[in-house]
């Protein structure tokens, strides 16, 4: 089923809901006084005519009671933007099965991934009570995306097909149409991301800061008074709907930020005009206030353990699990483990663009990459570092993805020292020094410096174990922690031979997600930074791809962008994954190292089994944080996961 068909199915569901007898809405207690005093209209006037009815079909999900205040911890003040990720209010949004559903929109008509007609909900309002209409989309397209001063680079790349922009029209206040000359399958998923492409803006508010609608003199003076170079910089600073850094900016999120930075404590209050209700007719979110307290990243786990967070996962790692279980007894919270969706928790990236010619030749030899992979004892690493709870194998999609086959994870990723030694001999690395380390063709010992971003000791621990088994294949490993920016810049410059980082961002990909991570189209691809840079800059810098399999990946990625139909897209994905499995462009170690999630004993509707992922997933986003609620009494704690 492709996106179009899915949305049509979703529409059918939405239609069925609309046909159901109108809900009797219940006033939110927190707003009752204000409504009685006339400061807000009553709930039926605040909701759209047909709000989104949220009733997840989960055994552990129950409709709740509104009220309460939820505390969470963040490591830096800038992380207030996480509330827009957690709140996950999008034009279209992924559900827990990773299918796209209309959310802010009432529905979407999709004609061949080429023409998208977006239908808004009648009566939908911004958090300041002003109507949300197609004019807000027009403001974005005409006055932001196509304004030379606000967007000197033009509209975002995902809105261009073959470099050409869409035709955007606004037939009526509730309808917006994006039409391209060729398919743009990336459009809808981009709207549903954790930091989405936002194709609307609160025009009524931002107009006051736009040169087209306000007097130049006044505007320039205001901008200068706020230390901005010009009106455009000032406008850009104010208009970020995903960062929660401007309390005056109207929003469509479930909670609105009320605290102006700088602060150590950010208070979010419910959006009185939020467009979702539960099946009882109670306006969501259930929780009135969310408080984000800033604390240093190093003490987040300790603070969580002392019961200072009602819902926490960021800042916690698997290593904290036992401590948190222990502390939960004292402070009445539960700690559960969620799955993670990265292609690998730890992956080695041989730099195919390394400057040293001898090393480059070796790194580009597929036998060398395979040998290094075969010489890693993943079972041992799993047992020693992860209590045997992780998944061993290559850096590829996870079993939850429809594209997964067991071969993808196992190919060239078993533990076979004899095979590794044979491959290395075959390359001609037969001479060894006194330590038993093989010598490279030019006589230097085969010593690989693996650079890490130096943020946690976990990577170094794993590298220590890899060192031992590589040594038995005659390869000496040194690990070298770097500061993060230096780490990246050295890789980009080709100074780094090999680096260690996370694996694929999205291990749960379906054919509808872009496969670009598998192709050399981005400088951030640590195994081929210069090829990626070459593509990104249209050949201005970097190096052209000069390896056949990589070139094929690039071609396939292009083919995916214009492929019609899910079957064709799946075919492309499978071919790309197969190339990766065979070529071992990255060496995976373990995946699915689980994420501890701390849940206050009183907090309900947080699933005990879930997937902790950025994109797709938006962390708590797809689990509907707006339906989490507080009960009177804490629940008994769940049993701990036994170590294997």
């Amino acid at each position, binding site marked *: 089923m492709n996106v179009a068909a899915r949305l049509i199915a979703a529409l059918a569901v939405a239609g069925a809901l609309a046909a159901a007898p109108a809900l009797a809405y219940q006033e939110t207690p927190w707003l009752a006084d204000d409504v009685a005093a006339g400061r807000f209209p009553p709930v039926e006037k605040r909701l759209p005519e047909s709000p989104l009815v949220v009733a997840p079909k989960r055994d552990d999900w129950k409709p709740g009671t509104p009220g309460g205040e939820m*505390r969470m911890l963040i490591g*830096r*003040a*800038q992380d207030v933007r996480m509330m827009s990720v957690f709140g996950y209010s999008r034009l279209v949004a992924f559900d827990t099965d990773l299918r796209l559903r209309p959310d802010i929109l009432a529905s979407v008509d999709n004609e061949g991934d080429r023409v998208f007609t977006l239908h808004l909900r009648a009566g939908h309002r911004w958090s300041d009570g002003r109507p949300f209409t197609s004019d807000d989309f027009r403001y974005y397209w005409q006055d932001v995306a196509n304004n030379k001063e606000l967007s*000197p*680079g033009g509209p975002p*790349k995902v809105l261009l097909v073959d470099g050409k922009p869409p035709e955007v029209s606004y037939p009526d206040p509730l309808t917006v149409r994006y039409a391209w000359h060729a398919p743009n399958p990336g459009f809808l998923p981009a709207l549903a991301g*954790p*930091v989405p492409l936002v194709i609307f803006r609160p025009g009524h508010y931002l107009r006051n800061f736009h040169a087209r609608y306000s007097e130049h003199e006044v505007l320039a003076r205001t901008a200068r008074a706020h*230390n901005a*170079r010009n009106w455009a*910089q000032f406008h*850009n*600073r104010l208009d970020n709907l995903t960062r929660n*850094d401007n309390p005056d900016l109207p929003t469509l999120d479930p909670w609105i930020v009320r*605290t102006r*930075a*700088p*602060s*150590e*404590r950010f208070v979010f209050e419910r959006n009185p005009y939020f467009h979702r209700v539960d099946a009882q007719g109670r306006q969501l979110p259930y929780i009135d206030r969310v*408080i984000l*307290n800033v*604390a*240093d990243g*190093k*003490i987040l786990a*300790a*603070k969580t353990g*002392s019961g*200072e967070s009602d819902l926490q996962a960021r800042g916690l790692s698997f290593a904290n699990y036992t401590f948190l279980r222990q502390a939960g007894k004292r402070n009445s919270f539960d700690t559960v483990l969620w799955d993670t969706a990265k292609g690998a928790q730890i992956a080695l990236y041989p730099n195919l663009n390394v400057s040293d010619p001898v090393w480059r030749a070796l790194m580009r030899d597929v036998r060398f990459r395979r040998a290094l992979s075969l010489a890693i004892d993943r079972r041992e690493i799993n047992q020693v570092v992860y209590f045997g709870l992780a998944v061993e194998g290559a850096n590829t999609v996870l079993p939850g993805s429809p594209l997964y086959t067991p071969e993808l994870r196992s190919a060239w990723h078993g533990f076979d020292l004899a095979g590794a030694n044979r491959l290395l001999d075959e390359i001609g690395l037969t001479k060894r020094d006194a330590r038993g380390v093989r010598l490279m063709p030019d006589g230097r010992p085969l010593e690989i410096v693996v650079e890490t971003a130096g943020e946690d000791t976990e990577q170094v621990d794993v590298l220590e174990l890899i060192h031992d088994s590589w040594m038995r294949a005659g390869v000496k490993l040194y690990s070298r922690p770097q500061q*993060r*920016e*230096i*780490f*990246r*810049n050295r890789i980009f410059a080709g100074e780094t031979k090999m680096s260690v980082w996370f694996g694929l*961002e999205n291990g749960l990909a379906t054919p509808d997600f872009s496969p670009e991570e598998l192709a050399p189209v*981005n*400088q*951030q691809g640590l195994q081929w930074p210069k090829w990626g840079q070459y593509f*990104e*800059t249209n050949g201005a810098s970097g190096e052209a791809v000069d390896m056949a399999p990589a070139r094929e990946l690039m071609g396939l990625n292009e083919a995916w962008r214009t492929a019609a139909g899910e079957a064709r897209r799946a075919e492309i994905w499978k071919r790309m994954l197969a190339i990766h499995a065979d070529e071992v462009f990255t060496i995976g170690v373990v995946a699915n190292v689980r994420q501890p999630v701390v849940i206050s004993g009183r907090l309900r509707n947080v699933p005990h089994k879930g997937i902790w992922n*950025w*994109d797709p997933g938006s962390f708590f986003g797809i689990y509907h944080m707006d339906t989490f609620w507080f009960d009177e009494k804490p629940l008994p704690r769940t049993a701990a996961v036994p170590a294997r």
Partner: protein
Amino acid sequence: MFSYIVRRLLVMVPTLLAISAIVFTIIQLPPGDYLSTMIAELQAQGETANLERIEFLRQQYGLDRTPVEQYFHWLFGLLHGDLGWSFEYNLPVAHVIGDRLVLSFLVAFTTVIFTYVVAFPIGIYSATHQYSWGDYGLTLLGFLGLATPSFLLALVMLYLANIWFGTSIGGLMDAEFIDKPMSGAKFLSVLEHLWIPVIVIGTSGTAAMIRRLRANLLDELQKQYVVTARAKGLPPHRALLKYPLRMSLNPFISDIGDLLPHLISGAAIVSVVMSLPTNGPMLLAALRSQDMYLAGSFLMIEAILIVVGVFLSDLALAALDPRIRLHGGATK
């Protein structure tokens, strides 16, 4: 005396200019700029940042200008009292720093008081009872304080305070009081949290001060005027406090120059570990992320405080110690 003060003040100008150039150069030395930090962070989140957008931001932040231009832009602002713009907070630097000043002062001031209150009696006792059991015992304690890594002590104390007294971990007050106006309850909450950082930051300083006071006092106590005073029947405490102690205080007064910058960013590492809402952790973060105007202005304020502090302590020394004041005109 007047011409001395004027001369000292005039010398400050080139000193500060030189410092500003050095500060700015050092901040610029590491490869990359704030945007590369930002990109790396976006990347770690799984977001991609495209090169065009980055170029645009670089221009908006003024990072496309040459370092020399950037320096003069910054210097020009400083002379007008404009500390520049913090990229990371997206706010004027003055605004970012200002909020934390009060608490920074509170922590630093309390720590200084704590140090003095503990160090003076112990130092005097150790000097007057040299090589006694008490002297050895207290010296041992002092060395322990000096040798314990303060961040470790901080973590242990935070944990114990949480388990025993239910004090929330880190910070200077319970979360619900942040951004609230001062009240009785808030003040109590601050007191509840304040003692841990004060003890942790104060311990090493206390130990050092005990040793110095002891050594100075021992020197003085052996001088002939003390013996004479005792022989002439001056009461023991007077023979101690009136002259030898005053003499041994000089190093502490010249320390004032060091104290002032501590008020702004003292004990950064401990503050980071304890997540104190003071300026130290902020300076560290700014340096790491190359938020250059924030870091630069911070360091400049510190430099000014040091220069002024040294000047003030010189004046205070001259005022307090006639030997120094009269030295110029003294003829024997």
